[in-house]
Each structure stands twice: as C-alpha cells, then as structure tokens.
C-alpha cells in the first residue's frame, strides 16, 4: 500500500441553476488574458448538448484518454511514445479554435466616434483571433438551456450512443423506449447543467502525453499542473486529455489548465468556482488513495466495472491501518484528520451518491457528480402525482424524463445500476425528510429500501441540503507552521517598512506601485476572517444590524 492524498471535488447537480457564476469568476481570476480568450477552465454545459469544445466526448475523433491494448495493458488512445514523437510536427487531433469558438469583441470606437446623423451607429463584432470583422455564429454557450436543440441536439455524442445502443437492441422494448426518451420536442425534453473543471485525475493522460515532462501531478495534493517554464508547446496534452481541459494559450504558445486554485487551496480556501457557486453545490475535501492500485484499476477490462474499481482504489481513513500507513508515507496528521471529515469521501465512498464523469476514459477522474433528481420530481408533480412520495419517486426514476440510460452514459459508462441507486437514495432522502419536517414518524422501510437508516439519511441531508460552508469545504492547509505568512501572502516577503514613505524609504509599497495615488490600504487577515464570518454565519453580525 502506498497511500497518497488528493484534493477532490464533488458537485451536486440537483442544485446547479446554470448561472455560470463559477465560469465567470474563474475567468476573471485566471484567464482574462491575451491568448486565453477562448479558455474556460470552468465551463457549464447544458446536457443534452455538445459540450465544450464541441463534441469533445467523441473520443474516436479526438483520441483522448487511455484504451487497453490487445494484451490488456493501458495505452494512450492517441498512440504510444514512438508514434507520438514521430508525429510531433503536426497534430491532426488538436481541436481548432473553431471547435471551441472564435472569441470576439466589439468595435466600440464606432459608437463614440460616429458623426451626428439619423442612423444609430452600431458596434460591429471584431474577431480577437485575426482582428477582422466577423459573423458571430457560435460561442462557449451557444446551446445553453437547449438553445437550438432541435437542430444541434442530435450532435451530442452521448445521445448518439444511447440511440445507437437502443437500435442494436431493437427487439428490447425497454431500450426502444430509451431511444424515444431522448427527444428534442419541447414538451418531451429534459435537461440539466453539467459544470466541468479539470478532473485532476489519478491516472492523468495529459501528463502521460506530455513529451517534455512539463506536466505533473503534485505529490502532496494530487493537483495536476503545467510547468510554464518546462512546456515547449508540443500541444500533445490537449489531445491527451479526454475532457479537453488543457488549453493552448495561442499568445504564449504554452499549455494552460485549471490549477484547482492551488494558491487558495494551499492556505485552506476553497477554489474560486466553489467559493462563488450560487447553488452552493460544490464540495472539496481530501481523499486518501492507494497509488499502487491505480494502474491496475484503470486497466479493468470491463468499462462498466471501472466505477467500482476506482472506489476500490480509495482508502478508508477510519481504518487505523490506513492511518498508520498514511503517516509512514509522510501524509501530515491534519491531512489524515481532514480525510476523516472529508465531505467528498462521504459522498463518494460512504453514501455512494456521487459518480465519476466518464470513467471509461480510464484516467480515474477526481471530480465526481451527484446525478440530478429534481427533474423527476417536477415531472411527477406535473402529472398530478405526489412528487415527494417515496413509492411514486422510486417508480418514476425508471421512467423519468432524464433517461437513466443517458445519465449512465455520462457517469458510469452506461451501467444504469449505480445511477439508479444514487437517485433512489436521493428520493428516499426527500421522502424521509418530508416526514420529519411534517412532524410525522418517518417510515423506516423507506430508508431500508435504499440500504440506509434514519440517522444516516439525516446526516446525508445535512451535508447535501443544509450544506454549511464548513461542511462543504474541509481543506487542510499546505503547511500549518507557515500558515501565518501564507495568509498574508499578498504581502511580499521583504521588510514591511521597506517601501516608499516608510522608514526604509526604498522600493514600492506592499501592493506595488500605486500609480501616484495614496498607498492602498492593507487588507489584513483580521478583515478577511471578519468578512468570511459574516458570509458564513446564520445570523447577521451585530455591527451590521447597528448600522441599519
């Protein structure tokens, strides 16, 4: 056993309202730069839909991830090392800008400079790629909320797959129903949002396809990063990642990707996307896993067994043996403790409601998803049934508007079992908690039907529905001893008096040059914590009320 720690994420899709706040704040923090206009480390795609970049899930075309060779060993889908080097001079499997979208701005000058006249001046779109006027025909969210679904919906690779399988089993009545279910007529559609970031995989194919060795997985927290000084622009990683979460910065000629906001995570703060998520649906925590088992698990023959195989790689931090081994492997005590309190571990391994995204890519992804139940409830209610009654819900899950088959293609390589099991647990939780809220005695049979008990369900409810800030994010810091300096890391390590006007009288102020104005105020850690307390407490703090 070789225990390693990983910061992992779970997203509760039921709660995503598709507001794109996460994408926007992420962009503002990391990618609002030249050459990165088209880059969305975090994107939210409407499913069914083509995703971003378009049809990225079609691995026969894009060749991302791993596959098994004839001997059953893992091999990069885009070809082994020798093939990779021989074909380094061009990469036909690289998505072009057009597969993402051509970013643009508007010719605002035309608005201010237009001469007085009868016509309203217009700001024409200008491409940010070649600077020329362009016709806006696609963007990162063109098919948001099923926009254009009658035209584009069929292009979703997962819809194609569900339908193909249904056609193959034409005789099978149930399968034909599934095919009918993925429809884009408005009265029959279903949809949900799928926010995506880099999966920070345990078996990252991006790292494995980087010829320079510039990409790496951090040993301490499993975050996958690109060394900007080591990247030589061979652009193999973009193809290697089946989730297309490595992007090519076309201004610098280097690959860039989601960093899981490591500067924040190192000091115990959640990522920007998590912190700003309006639906409060993201969970961050530590997972311990056995690095020795990763390759074997990823080589599991049966695609549908990959989900279980990955569960088998994770270690149970409640097991004293695991804790000892973790200590021997140099995992700090507070990390092991954090693993015990980890919401991510609970949702994935304890309640088993969270599922991986496309385990069949064999990269062992570490951002997991709780499949959405809400549309079922809505559908039931619309038909006049009681949408929170357990029996109705259990029955409806198999006939619901988000066909199980479709969800299964996304989360479990087509195996509906785990998806159904996760959804029934969520349904049981609803029924159980309704009884509790109405002051009734919850029917024990409901919890038992999904293999849980009352207290267990209530605990899960606390994590999923109440979802306190402290419960959602359990992030150990990189170095407790060094924490104080880190929290003030906006301040340079040099002497704090050594700035213009200070006794040291040298150099710039702590925030750099202040363009001739007054010194910027220093934001101290006290203010930071006060703000955080205000955001996370149940009641308004006194000082706010006094002011009103």
């Amino acid at each position: 056993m070789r225990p390693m720690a990983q910061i992992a994420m779970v997203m509760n899709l039921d709660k995503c309202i598709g507001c794109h706040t996460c994408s926007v704040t992420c962009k503002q923090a990391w990618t609002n730069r030249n050459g990165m206009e088209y880059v969305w480390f975090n994107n939210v795609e409407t499913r069914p839909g083509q995703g971003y970049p378009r049809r990225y899930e079609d691995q026969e075309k894009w060749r991302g991830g791993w596959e098994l060779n004839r001997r059953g060993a893992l091999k990069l889908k885009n070809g082994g090392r020798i093939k990779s080097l021989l074909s380094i001079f061009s990469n036909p499997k690289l998505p072009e800008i057009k597969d993402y979208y051509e970013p643009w701005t508007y010719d605002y000058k035309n608005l201010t400079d237009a001469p007085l006249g009868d016509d309203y001046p217009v700001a024409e779109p200008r491409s940010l790629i070649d600077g020329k006027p362009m016709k806006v025909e696609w963007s990162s969210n063109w098919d948001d909320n099923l926009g254009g679904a009658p035209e584009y919906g069929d292009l979703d690779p997962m819809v194609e797959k569900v339908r193909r399988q249904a056609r193959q089993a034409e005789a099978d009545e149930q399968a034909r129903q599934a095919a009918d279910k993925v429809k884009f007529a408005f009265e029959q559609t279903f949809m949900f949002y799928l926010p995506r970031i880099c999966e920070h995989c345990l078996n990252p194919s991006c790292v494995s396809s980087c010829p320079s060795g510039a990409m790496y997985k951090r040993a301490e927290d499993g975050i996958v990063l690109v060394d900007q000084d080591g990247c030589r622009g061979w652009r193999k990683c973009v193809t290697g990642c089946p989730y297309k979460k490595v992007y090519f910065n076309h201004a610098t000629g280097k690959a860039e990707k989601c960093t899981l906001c490591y500067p924040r995570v190192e000091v115990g703060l959640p990522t920007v996307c998590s912190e700003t998520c309006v639906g409060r649906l993201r969970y961050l925590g530590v997972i311990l896993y056995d690095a020795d088992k990763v390759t074997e698990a990823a080589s599991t023959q049966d695609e549908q067994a990959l989900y279980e195989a990955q569960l088998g790689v994770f270690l149970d931090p409640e097991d004293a043996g695991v804790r000892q081994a973790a200590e021997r492997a140099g995992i700090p005590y507070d990390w092991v403790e954090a693993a015990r309190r980890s919401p991510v571990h609970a949702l994935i391994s304890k309640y088993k409601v969270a599922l991986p995204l496309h385990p069949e890519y064999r990269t062992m992804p570490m951002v997991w998803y709780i499949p959405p139940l809400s549309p079922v409830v809505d559908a039931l209610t619309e038909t006049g049934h009681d949408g929170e009654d357990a029996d109705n819900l259990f029955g409806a899950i198999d006939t619901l508007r988000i066909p199980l088959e479709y969800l299964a293609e996304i989360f479990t390589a087509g195996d509906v079992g785990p998806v159904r099991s996760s959804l029934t647990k969520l349904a049981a939780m609803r029924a159980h908690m309704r009884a509790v809220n109405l002051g009734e005695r919850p029917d024990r049979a409901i919890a038992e039907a999904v293999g849980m008990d009352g207290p267990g369900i209530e605990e899960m409810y606390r994590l999923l529905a109440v979802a306190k800030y402290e419960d959602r994010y359990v992030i150990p810091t990189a170095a407790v001893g060094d924490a104080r300096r880190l929290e003030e890391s906006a301040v340079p390590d040099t002497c704090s008096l050594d700035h213009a006007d200070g006794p040291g009288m040298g150099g710039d102020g702590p925030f750099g040059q202040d363009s001739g104005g007054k010194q910027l105020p220093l934001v101290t850690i006290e203010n930071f914590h006060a703000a955080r307390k205000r955001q996370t407490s149940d009641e308004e703090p006194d000082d706010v009320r006094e002011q009103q």
Partner: protein
Amino acid sequence: MKTLLWGALPYIAVVLLVAGTIWRFRYDKFGWTTRSSQVYESRLLNVASPMFHYGILFVVVGHVMGLFVPERWTDNVGLNEHTYHLLSLYGGTAAGVLAVLGILMLLYRRRTNAPVFKATTANDKVMYLVLLAAIVLGMWAKLAHSSVSEGYDYRQTIAPWVRSLFTLQPDIDRMAGVPLLYRIHAVVGLLLIALVPFTRLIHMFSAPVQYLFRPYVVYRSRDEGQLGARPERRGWEKSKL
C-alpha cells in the same frame, strides 16, 4: 574580407549559438516554445509541417555527413566519389525538395491565413527570410553545379575548411576556389546558426527524446520554499528551475 568571412564569422556564429542558448535557458525558459499555430489552422499544417521537418532533418543529417566525415573514411568503407555523389545528389535533393516544398507551403499558410499571419512576429519574419534563403541557396548551389555524372566535390574544399575550424587554425585558403553560390550559402547558413537561439528555432534543441524513457505519470513535490502564489520575478532574474 576573406579572413572575416571564413576565419571569424564561423566563430562568431558558434559563440552566438552557444551563448545565446545558455542565455535563453537561464532567462527565457518561458519563451522557449514552438509557438504552434495549429489551433488557428490545421489542414495545411498537417501536410506542410511534417514534410518540412522530415526534409530539414534529413538535410541536417546530410550536412553533418558531408562536412564532418572526411572523404578518407568513406573511401575506406569502399564508397567512391561517384557513388557518394549520386547518394548525395538523389538523397540530398529529395530531402531538399521536401524541405523547400514544405517551407513554401508553410510560408503560403503564414501569409494567407489571417490568424496565423497576425500571430507572426517581426522575429519570425527575419527567421523565415534567412531560413528560406539558406535552403533555397543550398539547393540552387547543389543543382547548379551538379550533373548525374559528376558534381562539385565540396568534400575537397568546404569540408576540410569546416573541420579546420575545430583545430582553431581555419584553413581560409580552401574557400578561395569555391563557387560563389556555395560561398553565399555558407554565409547565410552561418547567419542562420547565429540566429537560432534568438528565434523560435530554439525549439529544435528541446526535441523531447527523454519522453521515450520516463514513466508515464510524473509526480513532483511542492517547492518547499514556495507556497502560495509565486512572487513576481524581475525579468532579468534567473528562473529557479
């Protein structure tokens, strides 16, 4: 003049090459990249780039063979001047044609594809000018002085001169009778060598052969002394890695 061209220029070029590469390695690792333009345009590049690169790599191998392997050695293994000439004529010309066609396509693509053209820096333009000139002049010199029966035997003149450079006693007189085209090609070639570290051509020195020998997944530990965001480095401070 002769001394400058054949006695000094080669050393200047090599010093620039070595010093420039070291400088680049210490201070501009971030700028060390192929600056791939494939995200803008893929179809043409997929043909042109492999064609050019395979061509140019064979041309490089050819130069090494022709200039650094003395005629004596090939004679000893039983390769006479005529067979060698045919080898170099057909092999070299095939590689050269690949490289020329490739670079012409690359240039056509650079000029006509708007995003690619916009991403072309002045540095790229200078580089392309010298690169194209070197390749075309080389081909021209070769073909102008060759027929199937015999060709200009640079292994009697240019090659010994090149080798004499290594003994730090450049045999300048060897270059006296060399045809003009060859001489221009040699000068432009030296210029190209000097330019390599200062242009995108630097990418050739990072050809990632180590990929064949390393484990697939790379793990690295956090840098002990550096937690949180990295403080801004000044441009002239050497990078840490």
